[in-house]
């Protein structure tokens, strides 16, 4: 057996990894690479760099999968605190690109919001871990404040999309902690009443126009509407079986903007068709299911809440990206998880999956070997 050839500490490390989830992630990474190769006009350079991203992500996954829930819990407050301080620093001394101040320069440009994607669910899971669940109203209020603070700081950058996604990852923790259905129902009702009221009474005409364009991008074919128009053409013209790998006209003739980053799903849909899309979504569903499954096998409340929230956050990224690219959700800059080109997102997501794996309950047999 190979396992006997490896040194014991390496064996122990490898055994912490969930092989099923890693296999699914690898398959996704491979398929993503294939698509990226086509989307980048067959660029080996882009492919290599993406491989490096995955390499770093894999190391991070391996490292974080070693961390037990009890250990991670101790860092939650510190990480959250550091994240808040960095977000404040961004507002004070951040690097500005494209009119938004999102980066801190620390040798490389680093985006503290990325840290918050992991730190906030951790903080909330920590907060609820020693509370009796379902949570009391006062706990929920405090949890909402913990969500509101980083969300507010990120909105100020301004980056509404990321702020919403981070807030949602926090809300998932509250949901998984067992917040009463009545409260959820009430909140949704209040939300659905407040939004139209705000739209019709509290907004200026130009704001209203922007909201309309956001949800109906084809009103603005020169701007963001062009992206959606072209990506719908790409997906639609892919048909049932797709045009075939490397055969997408929309992507290869440059009609599709941002085709190797946020809009790579359109390249995929054009070349692999409806069938390919079903398989891809199936793979994503499997990964999400596996994440939730591991969460339910979590060591303690902290582990369950954190792993569950991170799995659902992964789902939200998937939903927002595919919804955006297929033209049913507004255009916000969210990559297709683990497929779009980009280091930060891949490393963060792989780290999240490492954390998820680490949350799994240790079997006694390993402890006996200690």
């Amino acid at each position: 057996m190979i396992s006997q050839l490896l040194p014991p500490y390496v064996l122990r490390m490898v055994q912490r990894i969930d092989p099923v989830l890693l296999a699914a992630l690898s398959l996704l990474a491979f398929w993503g690479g294939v698509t990226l190769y086509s989307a980048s006009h067959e660029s080996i350079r882009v492919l290599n760099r993406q491989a490096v991203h995955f390499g770093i992500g894999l190391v991070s996954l391996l490292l974080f999968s070693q961390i037990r829930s009890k250990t991670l819990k101790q860092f939650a407050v510190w990480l959250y605190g550091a994240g808040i301080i960095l977000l404040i620093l961004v507002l004070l001394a951040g690097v500005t690109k494209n009119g938004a101040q999102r980066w801190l320069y620390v040798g490389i440009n680093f985006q503290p919001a990325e840290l918050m994607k992991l730190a906030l669910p951790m903080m909330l899971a920590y907060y609820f871990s020693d509370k009796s669940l379902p949570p009391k109203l006062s706990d929920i209020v405090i949890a909402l404040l913990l969500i509101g603070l980083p969300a507010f700081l990120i909105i100020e950058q301004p980056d509404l999309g990321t702020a919403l996604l981070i807030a949602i990852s926090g809300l998932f923790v509250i949901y998984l902690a067992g917040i009463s259905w009545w409260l959820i129902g009430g909140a949704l009702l209040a939300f659905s009443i407040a939004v139209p009221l705000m739209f019709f009474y509290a907004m200026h005409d130009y704001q209203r126009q922007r909201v309309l364009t956001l949800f109906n991008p084809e009103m603005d074919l020169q701007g963001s509407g062009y992206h959606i128009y072209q990506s719908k053409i790409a997906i639609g013209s892919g048909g049932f079986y797709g045009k075939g790998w490397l055969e997408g006209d929309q992507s290869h003739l440059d009609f599709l903007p941002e085709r190797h980053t946020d809009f790579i799903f359109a390249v995929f849909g054009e070349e692999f068709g409806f069938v390919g899309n079903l398989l891809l979504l199936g793979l994503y569903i499997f990964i999400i299911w596996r994440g939730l499954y591991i969460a339910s096998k979590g060591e303690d409340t902290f582990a369950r809440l954190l792993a569950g929230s991170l799995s659902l956050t992964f789902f939200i990224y998937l939903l927002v990206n595919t919804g955006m690219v297929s033209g049913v959700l507004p255009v916000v800059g969210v990559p297709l998880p683990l497929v779009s080109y980009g280091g930060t997102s891949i490393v963060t997501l792989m780290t999240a999956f490492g954390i998820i794996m680490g949350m799994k309950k240790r079997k006694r047999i390993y402890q006996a070997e200690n």
Partner: protein
Amino acid sequence: MGERLSIKTERDEQQLFNSRATVAAVIVLCALLAIVLRLYLLQVEGYAHYTTLSEKNYQKHIPEPPTRGQIYDRNGVLLADNEPQYVLEIVRDRVEDQNNDKNRTLADLDILLERLDKIVPLSEKEVRIFKQQVRRRSRYRPTLLKEALTEEEVAMFAVNKARFAGVNLQRRMQRYYPLREIAGHTVGYVGRIDERDLNNLDRQEYAGTSHIGKSGIEAAYEERLHGTTGYTKVRVDAHGQHQDVIAHEPPVAGQNLILSLDIRLQLKAESLLKGERGAIVAIEPRTGEVLALASVPAFDPNLFVDGISHKNYKALLSDPDRPLYNRALQGAYPPASTIKPMVAMAGLHEKVIWPDKTIYDPGFYRIPGHRHRYRDWKRSGHGMVDLDHAIAESCDTYFYDLAYRMGIDKFSAYMQGFGFGKPTGIDLPSESGGLMPTPEWKQRRHGQTWYPGDTVNIGIGQGYWLATPLQLAHATATVAMRGKRIRPRVLRGYREAKGKPLAVLEPEILDSVSVADSSHWSAVIDGMVNVMHSSYGTARRSGKDAAYEMAGKTGTAQVFGLAQNARYDASKLEKRLHDHALFVGFAPVENPRIAVSVIVENGGGGSSTAAPLARKIMDAYLLEKYNQEQQQAEEEIAVLGVRGD
């Protein structure tokens, strides 16, 4: 209110989490099913729609204009040709960095144009228009810089081509009329497609075509001449750059048209009218084919091909002789006595007269019970006249009486049978229908009732009656054919391409002129023969010594209304108030091969001015078979052709 136990129970929390996670999983599934539904709508339901949009994105049709058909006369003389023209175009994307700033901007273009100007001089206007255009067009598509390069400029550029990346020398075909103003009205001209044309044509078919027929045959047979546009379907990227060719369909050249005009006869007619204003129409009676259609003065259609300059156009428009106006088709003149043979046919048909009926002409006519005298052109009167003399001597009184007794309704109706009052339907645009007046028309137009005196004037082709030279020639051809009417036509046939067989069009037969007795034709034609060949005929000098028998009728149309007893004295009148000289005729009488109408504006008497011209036309056509004149005409054409270059 029962406080919950605050003791944490691991099992309860595990259960709570599991139920929450299960609900979450169901929501995840539902949300992703919604995405699947969306993808189904796009990829399965919307497949055809989005495929079309995708193709619209990347497929581009590059039109290839067809070569316009040529126009020839009936003997193969080229009337409209295409000659190569060289133009300079610039493809901005291929223009290299000129000022070494590592950027290719519009500034580079300025430097390029300055350099180019030293090789091929560029006018300020050319540069200005180019700069306007280049901003609007894709940087990958050519923009026109200069047209009509001289041979020298072409050579200079060709030698220096390597130094001007992005500048292309292109060969285009341009319409050219080697005979210039000869038959210019009939052949017409092409001009640049304008807004008005764009609304009437198939834009896809004309996508690569810059010019369209604007007048004459060029306009009438635009469809035949244009041909079918070919195209190359290419794949382009989002920036408009060509990737590869998907499909190619070559253009089909337009038909070569063969006109019925005999350019030698046309040239003869035009030179006969030289210095005058007038028209000559010659028709082959048997087929309706128009042998000559001269309107003088004419203009050079080449002026219009590339857009006529404002100055030239103004000069043509303000010329008092109106060279743009096609007198043969559009000129409506009082037909005067030329229509007496047709009027005689009406009288015979309606039994108002009969061949041997005689009247006494005292030199004027009076409507019974009225005092007003309608004067005969011969003040002393013709005395006793029968039909033959009435036609041959052109006795007005005879026809005053005929018209009065026939009445305007029958008169008009019968004359419409000869084609008067409406366009003949010749295959040329902007034909005038002239005017065959009726009481209803007068009421409508002038709000006045019809007077018997109006009818009397109409009887000698004066008054309200107006006819075009073409109508007169057509009516004369109809007399020659003894009532059989054939629509006049300029297109004789066509060839699909050079070397292909000539397809000759069939004559179009119209409703015949009704006659009670076909011998009436002989009676009237005899009168017309005596116009030419009798000792008393008005055109006897023109018929003298003819080698064939001809039939004719003179006419003199008053331009200036004379007072009741005044005399017409040409020497005392301004030239523009002189009478119009008219003549119609055909020959040979037994086997008519040519029918002619002649009008010389303010030319004086029909017998003295118009009839001799008709005789010369007939001689030219019927005698010698052009042996000498053919050579002469061809020489002249050759000279013109060279001069036109």
